[in-house]
């Protein structure tokens, strides 16, 4: 039971995490606000209106200290939802762990660090694909050398599906991205069994119970075969499929929002039946606003009913042997293999992204899906059938502008108080390394320790790598 949540200010995030850890919950999911995810400081003009909205704002090590300082970090095992600036977020967390005296060998947690799906679907890219791949592999290499308990990457089919892909495309793009990462790591000189056990997946789950369960089963087989047969892994841990899933936000409706509670329950059940290790249930008001306290609680209770009352989680692979689910699983596996073969025949995933083909294929599927709803070919209860004009008013989460004001005041104080000569030296060293070919985790750590901000660090890298401009549509 992992719930994704952002809590505006670093102070509130700290309090929430202290409470959750006190209740015995580990595996804290950290949602960052969009400026942080995109490497902008809170006072950047582009951050206006977005500071502390979809997650917590982290400008410098000081904010990370506020969030995690004094907490039992070995138990916290945070999942940092960062991609294009994942190296910066990890460096900040490591610097806090150092201050707290946690030995590197005992630091655990996860970085999402799946940049390719950002180009295909989620959109929080900064640099062009190839330098982005370098940062991704730098992070994996650093973890392989220094952090045996850190999960270096969470490969996401989820966002591809939410951007409108089919179920087959979701698995195919996630695995084709995984292949691209694995090949880049091998090229860097890493051994497959040294890093493969640190890769995990995140998928979406829609309401079609049997198709989704079959998808998870097919993905498990595909991953195992890929690692054993294609990459010659020797350790079972390398081909073991570790996956979380989340309820498909795009299937949740603004109309009759309480119906979404039922949808989310079905989606989570599909995840359990398909054997995912963790599930994130969405809040029923997801199509209307960010979750309110009440809707977030209902989402958690849904998981608890499934876990403790349904009995669905008591047995491994309960659908195994069902003629329908087995044939669906075989069919999905074959279609995914054909899709990946085509991507590779056309030059691989990086090329498909650079040429905008992957993005266009997903956009076409999204359009097809919407026209099916508009024509009535696909039923969405409360939207194109069984409508009700009297949708109940529900209590909604409201953004709070005072979070941005406090964040910007703190940032200005930091820029005044820190040793700015040390910051300049650290940023210059980072720039030098970026122009060369060394692992950028090391100079990033130095810059973070000197209290360089995420905007300053990313601006140095923007200067060297340039910024990605999406192919026009």
């Amino acid at each position, binding site marked *: 039971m992992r719930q994704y949540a952002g809590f505006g200010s670093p102070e509130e995030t700290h309090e929430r995490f202290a409470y959750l850890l006190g209740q015995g919950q580990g595996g804290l999911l950290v949602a960052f606000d*969009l*400026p942080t*995810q*995109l490497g*902008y400081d809170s006072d950047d*003009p*582009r*951050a*206006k*209106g*977005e500071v502390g*909205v*979809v997650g917590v704002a982290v400008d410098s090590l000081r904010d990370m200290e506020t969030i995690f300082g004094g907490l039992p970090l070995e138990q916290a095992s945070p999942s940092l939802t960062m991609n294009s600036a994942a190296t910066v977020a990890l460096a900040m967390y490591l610097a806090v762990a150092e201050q707290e005296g946690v030995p590197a060998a005992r630091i655990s947690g996860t970085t999402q660090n799946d940049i390719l799906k*950002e180009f295909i*679907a*989620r*959109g*929080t890219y900064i640099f062009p694909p190839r330098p982005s791949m370098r940062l991704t592999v730098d992070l994996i290499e650093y973890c392989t050398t220094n952090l045996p308990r850190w999960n270096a990457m969470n490969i996401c089919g989820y966002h591809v599906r*939410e*951007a*409108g892909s089919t179920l087959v495309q979701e698995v195919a793009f996630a695995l084709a991205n995984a292949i691209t990462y694995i090949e880049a790591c091998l090229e860097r000189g890493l051994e497959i069994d040294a890093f493969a056990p640190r890769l995990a997946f995140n998928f979406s789950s829609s309401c079609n119970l049997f198709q989704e369960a079959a998808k998870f089963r097919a993905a498990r087989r595909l991953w195992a075969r890929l690692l054993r047969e294609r990459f010659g892994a020797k350790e079972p841990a390398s081909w073991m499929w570790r996956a979380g899933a989340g309820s498909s936000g*795009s299937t949740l*409706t*603004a*109309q009759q929002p309480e119906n979404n509670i039922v949808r989310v329950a079905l989606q989570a059940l599909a995840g359990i039946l398909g054997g995912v290790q963790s599930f994130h249930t969405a809040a029923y008001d997801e*199509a*209307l*606003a*960010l979750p309110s306290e009440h809707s977030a609680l209902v989402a958690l209770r849904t998981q608890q009913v499934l876990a403790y009352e349904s009995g669905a989680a008591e047995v491994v692979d309960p659908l195994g042997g069902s003629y329908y689910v087995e044939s669906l699983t075989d069919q999905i596996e074959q279609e995914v293999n054909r899709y990946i073969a085509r991507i590779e025949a056309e030059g691989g995933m990086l090329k498909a992204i650079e040429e905008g083909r992957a993005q266009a294929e997903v*956009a*076409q599927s*999204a*359009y097809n899906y*919407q*026209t099916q*709803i*508009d024509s009535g070919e696909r039923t*969405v209860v409360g*939207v*194109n059938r069984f409508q009700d004009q009297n949708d109940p*008013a529900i209590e*909604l989460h409201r*953004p709070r502008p005072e979070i941005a004001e406090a964040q910007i005041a703190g940032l200005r104080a930091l820029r005044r108080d820190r040793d700015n000569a040390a910051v300049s030296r650290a940023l210059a060293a980072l720039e030098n390394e970026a122009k060369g070919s060394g692992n950028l985790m090391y100079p990033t750590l130095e810059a973070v320790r000197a209290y360089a901000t995420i905007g300053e660090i990313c601006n140095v890298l923007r200067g060297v790598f340039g910024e990605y*401009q*999406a192919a*026009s*549509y």
Partner: protein
Amino acid sequence: MTDLRKSPIRVLVAKPGLDGHDRGAKVLAHAMREAGMEVIYTGLRQTPEMIVNVALQEDVDVICVSVLSGAHNILFAEIMAGMRAQAADGIPVLGGGVIPDQDIALLKELGVREIFTPGASLTAITSYIEDLVPA
């Protein structure tokens, strides 16, 4: 409708702010093209200023703005202010995305012509635009 027009309706589909959720924007752009309109899609992370400038340069009939990050109140206010500053407030602005009812009223006071929330059909949006833009 469209064949009665001398020239196709020109639409700017814009994504202001930092959010990367452009599924809706792309699906809508596709549907508008199917309906015979000429569509310019800005891509992600455009500032309000950039959006107003593109609208003027491209001489569009309608601007459709999509926001799913929760930053809609600030972003729409800046776009509408930019339109007035450039004396371009004759171009109707439509909005779409995850926008709560109470904010819809506020955005309409700012001059946003209509807001389409998740579940709106593509034909509802394209027909609205065809009715909005004189032939």
